[in-house]
């Protein structure tokens, strides 16, 4: 009984929220990209690059917020490359994404060694922020009001993006592009611009997610530190039926699984820690299997679009 309390205490949920933020951020970006018809398998690489960029920028400037900007910038840059490859060159979006992942892994590993020379350099990072008044309330306080600033930023983004996608004309335009780009084009919507913008936004959010990993969770850059979170984000998008709120909830679910695993480890329970580390991936696997066939992606997802005129 004692163990249950220790396991499922408030701090577990707070940890779950914290661990889910990078997934949420990356997934929200992917929601927009996929709603515009672009599948971005390269999220993993963009997160990794974002993490790297954030560390570099923070290292050079001493300011974690500059670090975040650095991460967002690099993520957006890769997003632009993916957009160009997918939209202009009409390369298979899956191949382009995979190539970006390969490239990002190689580049970040190499550059990190090059710049940091095998040292684990600590950089300026985010400390948890206690929101006044709110953080003193029992239970609610530690659960919601004692997170790093980035957490609040991401939650704000979730709310705003949900409004934009479903309540504004911009959202209608984006969704029309993802469903039937020809129809959108015919209605006078600038399909190319929307596809580019959403893909770059996806990259930027992945970069933001990466920044979170390296500046909030860990304070440094580790080889391949995204550890598959990008893939989990892709699943969260399907889980959330391509809507920001649902996606955020799905990401939270995965974050909680990871938190439970870590907590069980910390409590010293006799479960091998490798199996606990396996949990998030196992959970994602089964959730994904259960989802497929019950959800309907945007109709033109991953299909190359050709503007009729040349």
């Amino acid at each position, binding site marked *: 009984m004692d163990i249950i309390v220790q396991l499922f205490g408030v701090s577990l949920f707070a940890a779950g929220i914290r661990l889910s933020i990078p997934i949420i951020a990356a997934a929200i970006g992917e929601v927009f990209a996929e709603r515009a018809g672009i599948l971005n398998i390269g999220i993993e690489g963009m997160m990794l690059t974002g993490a790297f960029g954030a560390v570099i920028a923070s290292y050079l400037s001493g300011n974690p917020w500059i670090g975040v900007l650095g991460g967002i910038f690099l993520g957006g840059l890769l997003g632009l490359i993916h957009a160009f490859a997918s939209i202009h*060159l009409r390369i298979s979006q899956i191949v382009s994404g995979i190539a970006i992942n*390969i490239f990002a892994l190689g580049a970040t590993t*190499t550059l990190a060694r090059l710049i940091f020379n095998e040292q684990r350099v600590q950089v300026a990072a985010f400390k948890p922020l206690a929101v006044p008044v709110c953080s003193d309330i029992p239970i609610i306080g530690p659960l919601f009001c004692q997170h790093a600033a980035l957490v609040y930023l991401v939650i704000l983004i979730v709310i705003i993006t949900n409004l934009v996608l479903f309540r504004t004309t911009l959202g209608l335009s984006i969704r029309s592009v993802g469903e039937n780009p020809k129809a959108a084009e015919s209605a006078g919507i600038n399909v190319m611009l929307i596809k580019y913008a959403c893909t770059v936004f996806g990259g930027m959010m992945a970069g933001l997610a990466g920044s979170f990993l390296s500046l909030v969770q860990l304070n440094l850059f580790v080889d391949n530190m995204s550890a*598959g979170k990008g893939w989990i984000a892709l699943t969260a998008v399907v889980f959330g039926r391509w809507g920001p709120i649902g996606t955020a909830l799905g990401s939270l679910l995965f974050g909680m699984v990871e938190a439970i695993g870590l907590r069980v480890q910390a409590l010293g329970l006799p479960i091998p820690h490798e199996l606990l580390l*396996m949990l998030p991936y196992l959970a994602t696997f089964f959730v994904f299997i259960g989802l497929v066939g019950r959800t309907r992606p945007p109709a033109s997802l991953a299909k190359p679009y050709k503007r009729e005129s040349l």
Partner: protein
Amino acid sequence: MNNWRDRTLKSMKFQGMLLPVLSLLLALAVSAIPIMLAGKNPLLAYYEMLLGSVGGQIRIGVSLTKATPLLFTGLSVALAFRSGLFSIGAEGQLYMGALGGTMAALYLPGLPKPLLITASILAGFVFGAIWGLIPGYLKARHNTNEIITTIMLNYIAFWFISFLVHGPLREPSAMFSYTYEVPDAAKLPILIKGTQLHAGFLLALALVFLTYVLIKHTSLGFQLRSVGSNPEASHYAGMNISRNILVTMALSGGLAGLAGVTEIIGVQYRLSDFFSPGFGYDGIAVALLGANTPGGVLFASLFFGMLRAGASVMQRRIGVPSYTALIIQGLAVFFVVIGFGIRMLRAEKQSKITVMEGPQ
């Protein structure tokens, strides 16, 4: 009517081979920049790299040894991609293959060498094939997207092996977490004395040839290509799509499994969770660079093997870090993908004639 074969060789095929080569050269050129920034002479660096990869029997042995696992995983991924399946699962499949092979080697006592090796290799193939059949079945039956399932299975396989080598299979007195060493009877024969080059390399070469024959000259290969290109038309033509998917994932998984088992009984002799520095993911790079063809995979694997062998020498002799190899690899894949895109675009512009129902 044999001139059509000659003509085929001269046509797109040749052009297609040119592109990866060009991408490699471009990647080498671009990678010269960071080398220069580090204050070293790129030409000298590349020369040392070349020497380090093919300068002498020992170095060639190192190159080929490093290329061997990539040959297997490259073939694995190329086969899957060619059949329209974006399987990213080579890494997990090779881990499971390594597990199967190691267990066979350790726990089948008393078998004479040839039989033990065969059993081990077979076990590796089977374990890998099973790990490939899981996402294969899900795709065939429920159309579950294979990208996500294979990736998750990679992590699951890794942590499972990790659990085993830290726990039940661990050799207690060892410094690191790994299994007992496989008996001598299970170790693959070495091809060049003084190197680590093992018979697995020959097996890989044989498989390159077999894959080529499969794709070009068999009905099964024809079906795989057809389903990979257009499942709907293939279904109408009478092909069994589900069966094709299962066969592909089994073969692909098995090939990756071979990468795992040959690495253990050929080089490392113990199963650990760090035995693969990402051979499975490298296999994807190799497949992309090799345009999903067996010949291309051979070329790309040899190149990557040479790159890595040469890079460590380059680091020792000139001080240019060996991870430069990673950048070159990444760039090469990048350029190849962009290059294929541009080529397709140009081909499309030329054949605009098919968009219009023009007069005949």
